[in-house]
């Protein structure tokens, strides 16, 4: 991609956008391949290679425009290709399908039925992306752009009007105006706590101390969440533009993007985008011919969940261990190197240019009473249509899990949904009509967090989930507060006991007492929410804990100490497949005769379940299945 010459003024930017738009041939058929994490992992790069090669070989360059973009969202169909016009969405595309797509769809305008989304209930095909329920029920503002731009191309971003919001800001706004716009929009931080962004900016603006800093928190540590990854990988310029506007509003000259080292592609994309923008003169001294000075630096985290907490993130930026410190003073007063610093999350920054372009009233008209705009969620776990979804704040769990997510697959029952990452909680199926906004979730005992939604079905053990998160938090606790360091450890030990059949009812009382102590006495967000997984599961799934304690039974069949594997003799045809793969040699039986599992030798690895074609191996816990 050719580097853009320095853009010297606002008029220059407008002219450049216009000429780029003009250059784009509207008659080309646009083939767009998603190369987000889900598609990449399922072979999108090979598909891209095949498209490039065959478009070249067939001289189709003057008929089609082929583009690799960031995440479209529909990971369950990965790798995803769209063809516009007419707007077909093809899923599960293999390199071998490329020939057919070019020959049939591009040259002859035919639909390839086999690659199209099929309704799992009716089997009906849905050719157009816009008609697929997964997309139809969303309200995509930020995510929609992922599909329009090649994230490695500044030109592409300019073609969709990129950096217009910055130009408008520099041309006709004052910092006070900008803060007022963000306040009126009602934008709340998307990182979890939901603090009003405009208020934070205002406080930073009012600080007399100089210099000021702004930070993009891209340390997306919640397991099960990948929204920020996909925004940075798919549309890094939107985030940079948002940060430029924020810097103008508070008077910062230096900004940082703090990205997880575990996201190498995100690091690469944002780094390249920053370099491109620097050489185009949209970062640095005298941006767009004004006296605005701002620069950005990309900094990598090194794998510490607690660094998502703002004071820990600052410690890490300064080159120290990521330990939080007591607040106040808040970072807006004393942050990076003791100077006023605002930290907002990736999605928050990405929202800012849209608010400037469309007005605060437009933004405030979307969403619920208490929470404005849209929110991106990563919808994962035991749900049919896994992927990234963007919905107005205040959407119900039902609409997300069923209308968009298509419900729970394999005929299983929806059991619970986990929100807010490790510091969040689990909500039961009864609360399916709960609206998802900051207040409603808090009231229900969980948090919005950064937007992970993990769907659980009847084969998910809620005690195991609580154990999983508590162990995670025990590991990630920085150790500064005793309540968090020791409290998470003790809670995990109590959960060990329950999962392994040594629990008593007294354990539950102790867990509750300890949980409240941990949440009350810890200093940072990690510790203050560390007991949420335990407390929310105790609140909504107490009977499951009791089954583990009183019946020595894990109803979901997960907790190893409480389950055993058995073969149903009537279903077993003696194919010996399980006996062959059993690593413990615990399965006995003659060929063509039902096999049995020696419970003493069985290590409960579950391989026999995976390999059995007859579904004859079952998990038994306590007295029943």
């Amino acid at each position, binding site marked *: 991609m050719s580097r853009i010459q320095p853009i010297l003024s606002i008029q220059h930017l407008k002219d450049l956008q216009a000429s780029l738009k003009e250059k784009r041939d509207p008659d080309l058929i646009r083939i767009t391949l998603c190369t987000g994490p889900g598609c990449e992992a399922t072979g999108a790069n090979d598909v891209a290679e095949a498209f490039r090669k065959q478009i070249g070989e067939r001289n189709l360059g003057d008929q089609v425009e082929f583009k690799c973009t960031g995440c479209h969202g529909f990971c369950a169909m990965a790798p995803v290709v769209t063809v516009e016009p007419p707007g077909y969405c093809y899923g599960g595309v293999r390199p071998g399908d490329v020939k057919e797509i070019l020959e049939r769809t591009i040259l002859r305008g035919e639909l390839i039925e086999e690659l199209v989304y099929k309704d799992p209930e009716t089997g009906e095909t849905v050719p157009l992306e816009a008609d697929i329920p997964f997309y139809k029920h969303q309200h995509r503002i930020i995510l929609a752009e992922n599909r329009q731009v090649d994230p490695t191309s500044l030109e592409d971003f300019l073609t969709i009007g990129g950096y217009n919001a910055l130009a408008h800001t520099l041309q006709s706004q004052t910092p006070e105006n900008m803060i007022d716009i963000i306040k009126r929009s009602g934008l709340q931080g998307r990182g979890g706590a939901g603090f009003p962004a405009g208020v934070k900016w205002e406080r930073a603006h009012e600080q007399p101390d100089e210099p000021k800093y702004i930070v993009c928190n891209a340390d997306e540590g919640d397991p099960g*969440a*990948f929204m920020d990854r996909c925004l940075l990988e798919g549309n890094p310029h939107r985030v940079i533009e948002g940060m430029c506007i924020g810097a103008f509003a508070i008077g910062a000259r230096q900004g940082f993007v703090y990205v997880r080292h575990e996201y190498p592609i995100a690091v690469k994309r944002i780094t390249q985008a920053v370099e491109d923008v620097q050489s185009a003169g949209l970062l640095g001294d005298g941006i767009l011919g004004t006296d605005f000075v701002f620069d950005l630096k990309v900094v990598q985290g090194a794998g*510490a969940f607690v660094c998502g907490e703002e004071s820990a993130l600052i410690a890490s930026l300064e080159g120290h*261990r990521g330990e939080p410190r007591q607040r106040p003073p808040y970072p807006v007063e004393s942050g990076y190197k003791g100077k006023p610093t605002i930290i907002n999350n990736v999605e928050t920054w990405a929202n800012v240019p849209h608010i400037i372009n469309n007005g605060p009233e437009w933004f405030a008209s979307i969403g619920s009473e208490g929470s404005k705009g849209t929110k991106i969620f990563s919808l994962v776990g035991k749900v049919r249509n896994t992927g990234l979804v963007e919905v107005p704040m205040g959407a119900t769990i039902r609409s997300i899990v069923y209308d968009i997510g298509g419900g729970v697959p394999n005929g299983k029952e929806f059991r619970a949904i986990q929100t807010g990452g490790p510091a969040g909680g689990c909500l039961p199926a009864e609360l399916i009509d709960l609206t998802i906004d900051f207040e409603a979730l808090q009231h229900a005992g969980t948090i919005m967090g950064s937007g992970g939604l993990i769907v659980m079905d009847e084969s998910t053990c809620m005690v195991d989930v609580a154990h999983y998160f508590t162990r995670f938090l025990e*590991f990630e606790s920085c150790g500064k507060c005793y309540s968090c360091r020791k409290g998470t450890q003790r809670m995990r030990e109590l959960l060990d006991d329950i999962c392994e059949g040594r629990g008593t009812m007294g354990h539950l009382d102790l867990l509750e007492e300890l949980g409240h102590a941990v949440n009350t006495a810890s200093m940072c967000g990690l510790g203050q929410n560390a007991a949420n997984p335990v407390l929310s599961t105790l609140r909504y799934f107490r009977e499951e804990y009791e089954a583990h304690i009183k019946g020595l039974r894990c109803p979901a069949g997960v907790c190893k100490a409480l389950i055993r594997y058995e073969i149903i003799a009537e279903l077993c045809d003696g194919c010996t497949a399980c006996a062959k793969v059993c690593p413990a040699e615990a399965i006995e039986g003659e060929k063509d005769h039902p096999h049995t599992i020696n419970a003493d030798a069985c290590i409960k690895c579950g391989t026999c379940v995976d390999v059995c074609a007859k579904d004859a191996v079952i998990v038994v816990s306590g007295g029943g299945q």
Partner: protein
Amino acid sequence: MAPSNASSASTVEESTMPETDLSAVNDILEQHEYDQTELIAILLNVQDALGFLPPPALTHISEQLSVPLTEIYGIATFYTQFRLTPPGRHKFTVCTGTACHVRGAVQVVEEFERRLCICSGETTPDLEYGLETVNCVGACAIGPLVIVDDEYHGEMTTMKVPILLRRLERARAEVSE
């Protein structure tokens, strides 16, 4: 923070540690202009260059930056991305994020541990394979996920573990022939 992968027991003996190339470390320090606030980036770059953080490199960095060695060890053991022992030639990284967990990542980790006879965080004695877990790599929609070196493998099961291992073993046999 609980002991990270970096500091957990390893099956690798001290004596198998390769010589440390300090010139690479010097280049990295130079790039970062010996700036103390860049310490984490320096350590990440050194690890990229050398595969891990060998003790002589840490001592050298401590001297060059005038940062106490204890603080450098503090950082190297606080952040999970750092490792103080040599990695295997091939690395299996099993994602144990929530989405992968509820879909059976634990079984996948255990299968690797059983087949490789090492625990997560360790390297096989011949330095061929390393096994690690990661909290989440953001490919949640296709979990459980295993990353072999840099290649993603989605929807893993215990059944697929020996297939991945066999593939690498075959490649190794071909190389040695």
